């Protein structure tokens, strides 16, 4: 559409120039005599030449114009990104992937989650990060290798944390020597600190390796529910009516979305 508009504008412009310029330099007779056997009308000749000049100008212009820039990714937030060490090596994706990963069935992502730390040693998997009690989080994944010939290679695993605004605020890379069976992948030296300045809401954890996205999971950073109803639900998943008062209390405070995220 843009090309058509450009061509039309160029043609109109050429028409005006030609009708003024050619007679002035004495070339009109030469050109129009040559064309007269094909296009007898003078006006049609002018229009035809204008169209040709317009087309040449349009496509000439397009060839020298820069191509459309690739879609920009959301910028990283400098303040938070600087707070977390980001290895320089992760800026570019690995260019030499292990050749053994062509068969997807040989390697499975079994689990992807976030581990939370409340003190120096306590890490728990969760989908709700309580902003009041959690000090830091780190990603965790479990890969399953089920074919011996696909084991014993080092695979760089990349984790990204994306905040509720879609901004990637943390990236880390873990080189993992894949072995047969389960391979637990947790960054040992890098974690994402949780403070009251962290944006509350729904976050994403993405994992990628070997030029491929392996999965994404979601979790919430917010104030946790003040209690649980687990104790009032039996092993057969039936309700214990003694928990009704507690359930009413929860119902008054939280929306359905809160409960599904909690």
């Amino acid at each position, binding site marked *: 559409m843009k090309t058509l508009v450009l061509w039309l504008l160029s043609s109109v412009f050429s028409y005006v120039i030609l009708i003024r310029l050619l007679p002035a330099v004495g070339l009109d007779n030469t050109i129009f005599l040559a064309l007269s056997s094909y296009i007898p009308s003078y006006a049609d000749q002018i229009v035809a030449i204008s169209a040709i000049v317009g087309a040449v100008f349009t496509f000439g212009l397009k060839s020298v114009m820069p191509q459309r820039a690739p879609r920009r990714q959301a910028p990283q937030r400098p303040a938070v990104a600087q707070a977390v060490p980001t290895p320089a090596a992760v800026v570019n994706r690995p260019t030499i992937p292990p050749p053994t990963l062509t068969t997807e069935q040989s390697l499975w992502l*079994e*689990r992807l*989650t976030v581990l939370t730390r409340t003190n120096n040693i306590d890490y728990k*998997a*969760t*989908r709700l990060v309580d902003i009041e009690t959690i000090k830091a989080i780190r990603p965790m994944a479990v890969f399953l290798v089920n074919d011996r010939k696909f084991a014993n290679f080092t695979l760089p695993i990349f984790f990204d944390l994306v905040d509720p605004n879609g901004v990637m605020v943390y990236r880390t890379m873990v080189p993992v020597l894949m072995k047969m069976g389960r391979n637990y992948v947790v960054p040992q030296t890098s974690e994402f600190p949780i403070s009251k300045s962290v944006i509350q809401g729904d976050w994403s954890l993405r994992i990628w390796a070997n030029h491929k996205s392996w999965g994404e*999971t979601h979790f919430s950073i917010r104030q946790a529910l003040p209690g*649980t*109803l*687990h104790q*009032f*639900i039996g092993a*057969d*998943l*039936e*309700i*214990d*009516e003694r*928990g*009704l008062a507690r*359930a*009413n209390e*929860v*119902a008054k405070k*939280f*929306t*359905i*979305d809160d*409960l*599904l995220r909690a």
Partner: protein
Amino acid sequence: MSTWWGSRKQVTARMVFEIEAMRMLFSDKNPILFRQNVSWDGNFWVATHKLTLNTDCPNPFWDARFRMTNDQDSRSKINSRDMFHIQVLYTSNYPSSEPQANLKSHKIAGAEHYFSDGGKLCLHAHRTARDGWDPAKSTAATIALWAIQWTRAWLYWKQTTVWPKASE
């Protein structure tokens, strides 16, 4: 018009229980070990891939996607790496009548113990409240639990052409 579950902003105590129970069964934190005390099956794990609740239609429904893996010590011959998708649909007069469970991920036509009009799974014998649906206590998770066990029986039937009895 008020519903048994309330609204997205203001849920009822019953819905609080429903959500809690479903999330206990389909935990994304840890796979759940099912202990099968039957001769035709062994213990197996259920690892949840995704659990969602849809409340945009008149009757809310759950979608649960999961895989089943035999426990290491299990003697079960049922082996499937498939992703299963069970849908549990609340009825308009819930909890007086039980939710409907469907196995959405697989074609079960030709199998036993399902209703051919709509594919609803036949999960129990409707004998007494203890054996079947108890409106005061049972939840959608109870139905989902039975649907998982139904799926195990269906996998066994596919391998042997014999539908196992619950007491076997």
